[in-house]
């Protein structure tokens, strides 16, 4: 018997799991329309390669990965692309997202271009990862990280590959049903994953409240004779299904803060991902369907195998829910799920559960009070926190918008599991405060980055102007310096010019002096006029010579001028 470890805190939750497991999993009804968001994973959104009006067949690639960290999208069934447009999806922001909308034709016709891998051992691990990438497989436990990246050991040696079948949230039973019904396929998928990672050993971790799944799996593992696979039951404590928590319980190791499980030689995948890997490699089926639990205020809570892109409301109605009395629809579990603002949003690759709340009948979720009381610092949150944070301090500083202090208390190590919130006697929406603080800090950092870029640009421009000015000056200086040696010739020329100017000026001067005053309006006069002028001049000369008073002269002049 393997020694198990514990993580700090956690809470014991009422399971509510029996209802949905009362009947075997069946395929959900074919929806009239499939809505396939381009972003169903962590990373860059996929890029659509079809246009409205295109005929598509089941499994056909309709959007290719947008970057290295991305995943393609495939048509879940055959039909016609109706539109590529914004459509409501499950997102806390309530924003619409670009989706490929397909009108199904009901034929469910597979595309013909499929190539199953007959013997994966013959292919190198990179090829396997390529197949997995091309099948659009992402982490199906909820996070949706592209699986081919998580199956790449890089230069690490992977000691343990953990398959996460803990499924610790209440109501959700899709993984348990998958393990009960498809244990063989999950084990096959696990072996392919082990090959891709070149991992030494594998552990399948299951919570000890899933006795049936555990025994089925154990028997199948024994049948396959894979001695490197261990099936281990772990205590039922929320959030054992968290990656870091499960790794801690099974190996006793802690994933370093800010690091990856790979850093300690561990890789953890969801059981659903293993099943998808099996289908992709052995059957050449891309990820186009998954197991989904529909639970809560519906007449028949159950698990269905659902085509990715099926609108949530179709599934609720298929299970006997009433669209007119819905009050809250949660995608995911009650602890970490997102409440939908629009039930036409589709099931995506990461949707494991649809939890329905209605205004009539039993309301399955005892929610916290709308009016929170002040924090009394009881510390229940710190006792429950699986990361060993002090949520009461985080809350205090988040409320005060002291974003420095809130990071000192390790805000970014919070996994938003909701344990603190669940046990808070003041019924404070703690996780909400933490999300708020995180987004505020991200926004501030984003702004800071933008400001830094702007400042850099400004500084660069200043520098450039300064440099241009300097260069210009230097150019001028150089030019002048270049002109200097040829200066003598130039000065001679100048002197010649100057001399010519001087000569002209001298000529004008002598001319002026020799001509005396030569008013221009006396140039063309009649003889009579000339005579008068001469007379006047004579008088003027006379006056100049005879010393008479000025008045007389003036009078005479006046007389002269007024004939």
């Amino acid at each position: 018997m393997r020694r198990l470890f514990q993580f700090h805190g956690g809470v014991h939750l009422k399971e509510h799991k029996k209802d949905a497991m009362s009947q075997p999993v069946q395929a959900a009804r074919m929806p009239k329309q499939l809505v396939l968001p381009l972003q169903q994973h962590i990373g860059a959104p996929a890029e659509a390669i079809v246009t409205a009006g295109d005929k598509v067949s089941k499994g056909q690639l309709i959007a290719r990965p947008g970057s290295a960290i991305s995943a393609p999208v495939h048509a879940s069934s055959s039909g016609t692309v109706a539109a590529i447009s914004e459509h409501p999806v499950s997102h806390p922001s309530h924003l619409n997202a670009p989706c490929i909308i397909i009108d199904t034709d009901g034929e469910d016709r597979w595309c013909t271009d499929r190539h199953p891998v007959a013997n994966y051992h013959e292919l190198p691990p990179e090829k396997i990862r390529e197949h997995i990438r091309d099948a659009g497989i992402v982490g199906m436990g909820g996070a949706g990280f592209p699986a081919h990246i998580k199956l790449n050991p890089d230069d690490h040696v992977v000691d343990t590959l953990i398959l996460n079948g803990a499924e610790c949230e209440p109501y959700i039973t899709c993984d348990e049903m998958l393990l009960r019904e498809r244990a063989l396929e999950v084990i096959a998928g696990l072996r392919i994953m082990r090959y891709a990672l070149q991992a030494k050993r594998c552990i399948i971790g299951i919570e000890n409240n899933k006795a049936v799944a555990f025994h089925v799996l154990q028997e199948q593992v024994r049948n396959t004779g894979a001695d490197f696979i261990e099936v281990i039951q772990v205590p039922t404590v929320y959030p054992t299904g968290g990656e870091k928590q499960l790794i801690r319980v099974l190996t006793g190791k802690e994933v370093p803060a800010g690091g990856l499980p790979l850093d300690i030689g561990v890789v953890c995948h969801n059981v659903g991902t293993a099943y998808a890997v099996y289908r992709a490699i052995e059957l050449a089926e891309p990820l186009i369907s998954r197991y989904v639990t529909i639970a809560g205020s519906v007449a028949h809570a159950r698990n269905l195998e659902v085509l990715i892109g099926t609108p949530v409301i179709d599934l609720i109605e298929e299970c006997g829910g009433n669209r007119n009395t819905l009050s809250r629809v949660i995608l995911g579990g009650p602890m970490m799920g997102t409440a939908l603002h629009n039930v036409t949003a589709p099931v995506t690759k990461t949707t494991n559960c649809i939890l329905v709340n209605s205004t009539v009948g039993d309301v399955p979720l005892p929610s916290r009070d709308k009016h929170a009381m002040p924090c009394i610092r009881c510390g229940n949150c710190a006792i429950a926190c699986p990361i060993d944070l002090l949520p009461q301090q985080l809350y205090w500083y988040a409320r005060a918008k002291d974003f420095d202090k809130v990071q000192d208390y390790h805000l970014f190590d919070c996994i938003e599991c909701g344990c603190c919130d669940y046990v808070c006697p003041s019924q404070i929406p703690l996780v909400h405060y933490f999300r708020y603080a995180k987004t505020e800090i991200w926004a501030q950092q984003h702004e800071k980055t933008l400001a830094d870029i702007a400042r850099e640009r400004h500084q660069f421009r200043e520098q450039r102007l300064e440099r241009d000015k300097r260069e210009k000056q230097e150019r001028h200086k150089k030019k002048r310096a270049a002109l200097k040696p040829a200066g003598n010739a130039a000065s001679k020329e100048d002197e010649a010019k100057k001399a010519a100017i001087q000569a002209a000026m001298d000529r004008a001067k002598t001319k002026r002096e020799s001509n005396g005053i030569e008013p221009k309006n006396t140039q063309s006069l009649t003889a009579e006029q000339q005579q008068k002028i001469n007379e006047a001049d004579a008088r003027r000369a006379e006056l100049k010579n005879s010393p008479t008073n000025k008045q007389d002269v003036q009078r005479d002049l006046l007389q002269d001028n007024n004939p």
Partner: protein
Amino acid sequence: MNLDTPSSPHIHSGINITGIMVRVCLALVPAIIAYTWFFGWGLCINILIAVGTALCAEALMLRIRQRPIAPFLADGSAVLTGVLLAFCLPPFSPWWITVMGTAFAIIVAKQLYGGLGYNPFNPAMVGYVMLLISFPLEMTQWVPPNIVNQLQIGFLDTLNIIFTGSFPYSLNIDALSMATPLDTVKTELGLNLTVSEIMRGNAIFGDFGGVGWEWVGNWVLLGGVWLIYKRIITWHIPLAVMGSLFVISFFFFMLDPDTYASPMFHLFSGATLLAAFFIATDPVSASTTPRGRIFYGIGIGILIYVIRTWGSYPDGVAFAVLLMNMAAPTIDYYTQPRVFGYKKGNTNENPRRGQN
């Protein structure tokens, strides 16, 4: 279709502040019954006066501060403050002592600091210390156990004593009252008697502490253990208070059993157990990290002993709690737990700071 879209988690354990306060009050019920058995109806009447005053003062202050009244009255914190303060007062205290202490506790120590969740000091202890300093005479008029039974002072007689100060059989409080065991030890040690002489020569001493007091202590202990079992409080503070008091008193007792009272005497006398389980564990004013709570409790235990042994007051519980209340934020700061994924002692170095 109007869908509700709150932030996760979507479920809650259902626990609330009222539930906590009610359970703490319930845990005190056996001790209150024992107290009443030995010391008469005084405590019950004091509790009624104190709770009434606490609720009125709380409502008044909430109204002045323009806060919603109903939810804060219903949270039960004012009721608990009243009950705890009444538990610390001499059973035949005049009514105005109780009223003044409680009003001071609620108005000054709690509401002026911002109400529930914001008071740095334990309101009941602030009220108690105010009374102890302002009315030392009234605060030391304790009656010996069983005297109410011997004299057959009934409920109406007690009411009469508390509200008018007139005793039956033309007795008076001076004739009735006598020192508490802690007080007796303190005074008579000053008269150069040894502890064993003091204990032998006085009928108020029982097996460990005082007659009657011990039994009240037992029931307080039981109530406290129930609170730990119910996860209303954690074991850290009570164990640290009792443990440190035991260790320090054991050390001095071993050094000189004639001058220093036994550890059991210290544990079962005065308000030690009440403080350990009900007063020091007040979440608002106590330390809140698991390790911090241990340091906080140890501080209280040591201070209780120091004040009792070398201070001028016979009991030091209230002062010890208030002094450690002051230290709580600092203790919290230095006792942060190691966060998951960090190396030991390296918690302040934060690789995730400013990440993502």
